[in-house]
């Protein structure tokens, strides 16, 4: 982690290809340093922050006054920071008989701030939870006394989680965890607090800025989707090819517990929807032996979407994994104990995240847990199936090679698609796709779950999901369409498809469906638009290839002349 001084030196080192983000910071303590830390750290992720700061202690005034500087600024993100030291001051000013409700009223106030903000702004709200400390009044007995400071402080932290699961655009920045990890003696500096009203030490600021930025990046679709493990001395201690099945360290042997713990972490991530892969320098048969025969292995072969064990260089192997999964290099994490392999991958594939593991395996897991590699901005039940879906994909690729005619291959897949309007079951997944998809995304308009919800209720828009299955299994929802209903045409506000289903003719199926939907309402024209980004070149010619005609930077399809595309997908 860079020091605060180093982050300050970063400020201003922007470039024209950086994404621009407007962040408003409202705090009840001095927040200038926090703003500088976030600005400086943003540079390393190619983000240029424009920061608006209110004078401190003006949180309510900024939000409840509709003509405040905050609303003029029109931020993408609003960060609110109620500090726990200030909270104690407020707590001490609260009459004794009202202290049991202190936490509850704090949460209610926040809920009011949120709804007032959301009336006017589409911005997402980031909120710091509270760094915990004791006030030395009841001692450990505080835990029994509802009217004690610690009791109310922890109640707030707990209820913040409840509130943020209710309010879709409220995201908690867990600075309490940062403080726990560093220790309060390092996180808080009394002199800075009393002399400058700074409530986070200069050592703590970069870590707090990092957590804030992690959330912002996740909300902008920058997330990790795949975890690639090395095997020898990473998933187990020792070298399977040299030491043999009985002597590799896993479970109770040697430092085996540390490796088992790493495997358990991998398993948890897999269950959350992270795709696991193996990339190892080994003979494939030798590499697979522990997974098949060792009784203490936590991860099994079926937990991995792809298993690559050979003697090629690891960068090439990771390129192959990337091709099969069809995800960006910047969404991959590679874990390897060997600094040589790590550097090779870092140099050949700079976008892949390669954490520098500590030397001693016992330190692996704590280090990785604190790197916050897998921040996310959404979660759906569908995530758990992802590895199965990618495994099926790997099988399809092998199967495809046995066909010389692509049409013959596609028809043999026996694809079935279902098209539905957004509903309560699909909305979380729709929001996830809308927030994450970068490549097959014609206009890259980002929608939050709350916004998707309002589209499903709207009279002026139609939101559609398309799900697909074939003989290998279900893909789940693989495309989203949002149509804006105009008087004489439908405008395709959003067309997103999962890159897993490219070259299957899904776009033909979808356009056929859209055209019959529009015709049934007497609409004669469908219009689309392509807004280029760095990542969506793949759909540059999308509308042209579907027979749309370009006119004044929009693409127009005349439905009177439209002839349905032949395709290999039947409607379920």
């Amino acid at each position, binding site marked *: 982690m860079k020091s605060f*001084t180093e982050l*300050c030196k970063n400020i201003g080192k922007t470039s024209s290809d950086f994404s621009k983000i407007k962040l408003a910071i409202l705090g009840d303590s001095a927040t200038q340093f926090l703003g500088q830390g976030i600005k400086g750290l943003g540079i390393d992720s190619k983000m240029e922050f424009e920061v608006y700061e209110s004078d401190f202690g003006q949180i309510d005034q900024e939000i409840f006054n509709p003509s405040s500087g905050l609303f003029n600024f029109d931020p993408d993100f609003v960060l609110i920071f109620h500090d726990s030291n200030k909270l104690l001051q407020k707590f001490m000013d609260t009459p004794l008989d009202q202290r049991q409700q202190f936490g509850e009223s704090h949460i209610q106030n926040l809920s009011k701030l949120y709804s007032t903000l959301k009336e006017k702004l589409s911005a997402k709200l980031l909120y710091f939870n509270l760094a915990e400390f004791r006030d030395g009044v009841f001692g450990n007995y505080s835990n029994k006394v509802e009217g004690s400071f610690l009791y109310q402080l922890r109640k707030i932290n707990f209820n913040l989680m409840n509130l943020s699961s209710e309010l879709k655009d409220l995201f908690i920045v867990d600075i309490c965890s940062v403080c726990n990890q560093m220790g309060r003696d390092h996180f808080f500096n009394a*002199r800075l607090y*009393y*002399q400058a009203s700074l409530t986070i030490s200069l050592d703590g600021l970069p870590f707090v800025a990092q957590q804030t930025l992690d959330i912002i990046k996740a909300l902008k679709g920058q997330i990790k989707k795949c975890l690639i493990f090395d095997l020898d001395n990473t998933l187990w201690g020792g070298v399977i090819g040299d030491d043999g099945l009985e002597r590799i360290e896993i479970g109770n042997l040697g430092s085996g517990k540390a490796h088992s713990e790493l495997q358990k972490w991998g398993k948890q991530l897999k269950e959350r929807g992270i795709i696991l892969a193996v990339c190892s320098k080994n003979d494939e048969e030798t590499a697979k032996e522990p997974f098949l025969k060792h009784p203490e292995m936590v991860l099994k072969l079926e937990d991995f979407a792809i298993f690559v064990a050979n003697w090629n260089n690891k960068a090439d192997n990771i390129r192959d994994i990337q091709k099969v999964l069809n995800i960006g290099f910047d969404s991959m994490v590679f874990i390897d104990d060997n600094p040589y392999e790590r550097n090779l991958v870092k140099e050949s594939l700079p976008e892949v995240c390669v954490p520098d593991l500590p030397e001693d395996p016992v330190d692996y897991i704590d280090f990785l847990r604190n790197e916050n590699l897998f921040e996310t901005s959404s979660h759906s039940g569908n995530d758990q199936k992802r590895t199965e879906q990618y495994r099926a994909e790997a099988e399809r690729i092998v199967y495809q090679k046995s066909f010389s005619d692509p049409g013959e291959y596609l028809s043999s897949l026996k694809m079935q698609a279902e098209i539905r309007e957004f509903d309560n079951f699909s909305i979380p997944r729709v929001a996830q796709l809308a927030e994450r998809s970068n490549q097959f995304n014609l206009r890259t308009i980002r929608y939050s779950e709350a916004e998707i919800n309002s589209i499903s209720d709207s009279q002026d828009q139609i939101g559609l999901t398309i799900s697909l299955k074939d003989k290998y299994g279900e893909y789940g929802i693989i495309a989203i369409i949002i149509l804006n209903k105009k008087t004489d045409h439908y405008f395709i506000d959003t067309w997103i498809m999962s890159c897993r289903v490219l070259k299957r003719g899904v776009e033909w199926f979808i356009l056929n469906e859209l055209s019959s939907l529009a015709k049934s309402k007497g609409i004669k024209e469908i219009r689309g638009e392509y807004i280029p980004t760095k990542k969506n070149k793949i759909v540059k010619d999308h509308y042209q290839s579907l027979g749309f005609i370009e006119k004044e930077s929009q693409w127009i399809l005349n439905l009177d002349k439209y002839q349905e595309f032949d395709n290999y997908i039947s409607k379920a």
Partner: protein
Amino acid sequence: MDKAEILKKLNDIFINTLDNADIVLKMETTAADIEEWDSLRHIMLVVEIEKTMKTKFTSKEITKFKNVGDIVNSIEAKK
């Protein structure tokens, strides 16, 4: 460590923290002499000096610092 050595170390800290390689500190240098030395940077300077010199100032000492010489003298007195 004598005053000259302390002054030399402080100079490095100032250059690094204020991100200005041209700074040349003297005992009588004050915040008015260096453009980047504002109240926020002052906080960073004090924290950096404490860390690098492995010393700790009290709040009272800090408020009494009038120039670089005061800082040097305070560090020397604590050794």
